[in-house]
């Protein structure tokens, strides 16, 4: 046994050595001038405001760049001038002239001028990345944009709308990420092969917002540094760090130990577990994300109007909202989220299986049928699909659930190959047209039209009346009338569309109680760090 003893001693020695190392460092909690968040940032793939369309990216550029028009952190319900101090709309409603706020500076020290605004907006149109449609819907393309968006003086820019859309919609659109103003001199100094600085700006920053980008290490961290010259004054936090922590359980441990100030991706279970913990606060913020169900109109059975209606009565809205969705989602049955301008707050549908069954019988499918439900692998989608599957079985419909990653699911949906899909949506900018354009506008239903970005086309919903109503509402200049039109549109949509809107999301944020002033707006790209204090 001598050998064993020796072995045991060596193991003990190793363990001892290990603990010697351990005792060497005391763990510092986060400093008072730095905000540290644990967040999954693997969706961050670009920081160029002409391209950003992801959650983390939208949040980061919201803090790096000031936009032409803005919903400010102090009052998220009011659209105000951002880089622009004021604007004037011409008599025919077509041309908006912006006056640029004086004294603004980019992080480089360059002054913010009309030529930067002109460059930033034109750049979005020329680069033609995914979010560019927010601007190109106003009739701008690479051939005419240089004439229609113009600096008319050192501090004035005129923007001419080349579409029927109203000026109000244009102003709202300029508050989206594509309305960010970039530093022309800096960006163009990094231009390569006529790319307008695109390759460079993907991983760097050149803005005038409250923070500038210090580091972005993919799948590791993002570090932002305060801009002391910002027009709202120096932010209280000197630094903001987003730490990539993919595992929610690890996020929970970090926030409990105080090694991060906020945990951004906790599951409902974990949040429940943290309730009442000393020093931890849970915030609930209403978000503009929706969960909806879409049936394919080309499907021989699901294309039937009565079957579509039956499906609305099948869903157990309250049952889900009060159980596994509690705290994260609430019932909301129209396409434009609640709590915003032109929201329709009524929820006319409740689970009514008798009614659903009779509607299905009326359509001639009383004997039941089989369908496939497609949805995402991430919570809560599988759970929602299961609930719908169960309810469907009660009216004789046998549903098979297929779970896929988004990268597999979206191509199927875009190719019109789904039967029933449960998916999510959030607006691209804060105007009901953003969602109406996607769900209630399908000007060309032909297969070869390939309007693949629009769910209305994907489900092959060819309703000329609804499409016309959406166009008219976007054109309307009178705000009161316009709001009424959207309310009407949503009511009609609720009854006839192949979409069943079910839930609106809310975000649960877990923070240390000493962290105050974190503002998280309804839209994904309205998250502000500049008022945070500790």
């Amino acid at each position: 046994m001598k050998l064993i003893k020796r072995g045991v001693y060596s193991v003990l020695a190793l363990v001892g050595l290990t603990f010697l190392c351990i005792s060497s460092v005391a763990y510092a909690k986060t400093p008072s001038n730095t905000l540290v968040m644990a967040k999954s940032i693997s969706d961050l793939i670009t920081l160029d405001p002409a391209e950003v369309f992801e959650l983390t990216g939208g949040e980061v550029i919201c803090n790096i760049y000031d936009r032409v028009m803005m919903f400010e952190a102090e009052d998220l319900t009011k659209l105000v001038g951002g880089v622009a101090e004021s604007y004037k709309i011409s008599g025919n409603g077509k041309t908006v002239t912006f006056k640029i706020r004086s004294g603004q500076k980019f992080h480089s020290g360059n002054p913010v001028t009309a030529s930067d605004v002109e460059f930033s907006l034109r750049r979005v149109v020329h680069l033609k990345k995914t979010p560019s449609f927010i601007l190109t819907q106003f009739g701008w393309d690479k051939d005419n944009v240089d004439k229609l968006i113009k600096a008319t003086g050192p501090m004035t820019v005129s923007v001419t709308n080349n579409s029927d859309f109203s000026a109000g919609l244009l102003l709202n659109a300029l508050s989206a990420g594509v309305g960010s103003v970039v530093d022309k001199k800096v960006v163009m100094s990094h231009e390569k092969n006529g790319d307008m600085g695109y390759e460079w700006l993907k991983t760097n920053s050149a803005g005038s917002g409250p923070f500038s980008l210090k580091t972005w290490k993919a799948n590791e961290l993002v570090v932002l540094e305060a801009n002391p010259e910002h027009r709202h004054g120096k932010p209280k936090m000197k630094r903001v760090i987003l730490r990539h922590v993919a595992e929610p359980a690890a996020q929970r441990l970090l926030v409990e130990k105080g090694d991060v100030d906020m945990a951004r991706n906790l599951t409902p279970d974990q949040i429940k577990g943290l309730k009442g913990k000393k020093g931890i606060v849970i915030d609930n913020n209403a978000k503009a994300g929706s969960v909806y169900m879409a049936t394919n109109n080309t499907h021989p059975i699901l294309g039937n109007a009565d079957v579509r209606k039956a499906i609305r009565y099948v869903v157990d809205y309250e049952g889900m909202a009060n159980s596994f969705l509690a705290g994260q989602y609430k019932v909301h049955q129209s396409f434009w989220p609640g709590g915003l301008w032109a929201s329709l707050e009524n929820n006319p549908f409740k689970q009514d299986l008798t009614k659903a069954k009779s509607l299905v019988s009326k359509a001639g499918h009383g004997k039941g049928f089989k369908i496939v439900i497609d949805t995402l692998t991430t919570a809560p989608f599988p759970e929602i699909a299961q609930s719908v599957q169960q309810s469907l079985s009660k009216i004789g419909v046998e549903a098979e659930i297929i779970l896929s990653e988004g990268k597999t699911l979206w191509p199927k949906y875009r190719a019109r190959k789904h039967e029933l899909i449960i998916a999510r949506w959030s607006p691209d900018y804060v105007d009901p047209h953003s969602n109406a354009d996607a769900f209630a506008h399908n000007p060309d239903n032909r297969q070869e039209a390939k309007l693949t970005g629009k769910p209305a086309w994907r489900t092959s919903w060819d309703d000329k009346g609804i499409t016309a109503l959406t166009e008219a509402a976007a054109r309307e200049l009178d705000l009161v009338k316009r709001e009424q039109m959207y309310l009407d549109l949503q009511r009609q949509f609720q009854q006839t569309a192949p979409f069943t809107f079910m839930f609106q999301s809310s975000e649960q944020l877990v923070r240390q109680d000493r962290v105050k002033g974190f503002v998280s707006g309804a839209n994904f790209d309205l998250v502000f760090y500049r008022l945070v204090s500790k």
Partner: protein
Amino acid sequence: MGLKTPLGLEGMVNKSFPPPIVGQLFRLFSSLILTFIGLTAITFIIGRVMPADPVLAIVGDRASREVYDAMYLQMGLDKPLIQQYLIYISNVVQGDFGKSIMTARDVLDDLIRFFPATLELATIATLIGVFIGVPMGVGAAVYQGQWFDHLVRVIGLFGYSVPIFWLGMVALLIFYGWLDVLPGPGRIEVFYDGVVNPVTGIILIDSALQEEWEVFWNAVDHLILPSTILATFALAYIARMTRSFMLDQLNQEYVLTARVKGLKESSVIWGHAFRNVLVQLITIIGLTYASLLEGSVLTETIFSWPGIGQYITTSLFNADMNAVIGGTVVVGICFVGINILSDALYKLADPRARGD
């Protein structure tokens, strides 16, 4: 592969022309090139037949048709598969692995950043596995059937069967959450980020070279949990294999002879039996090390370790094929490299394999 001659002529050929070193080099290069072509071709084909759409990965699911088509053309997806592959290979030969969609950077830069993190973790884990696993296995064989043997077998079973994500979470909960003796997830405290200039990319080495001892010890602390967790698997495997190899040897007659000759027990075990086990053990350790170098997705995810396993997996989920192929090539090179290394060690340990 390699230069094999008909049986019986080997000795003659080896002593004459060409000298053995040429044959070895030829073998090395041909195996490297074959591995490279095979790996890239298979990964490339898998990437193209996968249902995930690499264009959507970039433009997002709401992109209009024009945006989608422009990106499709820009990525060269309209060309025939074989042409796409040849273009890719010719770029790689020039050192251009393409850009990653997920990180917006050159794949080569990504690999240079992510691989050292895995290398650091896997090396430490293997070292722990070897220095604890081998003595454990030897001890278990020597005292077969006694309590120490049972203990080793239980540990072996544990390390082999307990899921690593569970072990990782529980270890974090205990040592970080409750006891507070070890740091939480991450490779280093965020506030130390950027203090040390990356030279090798391995924080322990870089911080030691630049004499940033505070960073060094912080990195050591952060390494303890993930490397120990990762090591449990290596340790269990190595201990089990050592035990069975040693049992084989200890039952041989030469061991009996040695004992009869009156040699000390320790020199019978370590000097005679263990020397003969060494050759097989090198292969086992090499394979274990190589498999750890692939990166452990679960350990890396739980401990927020920016390693190559996580990189390849997230890239795969996002149809980011340049990154996946780049990562796969690195893993392939590791396997080939470790094979060569264990061949060399093999020759050191076994005089018969030296071929002279």
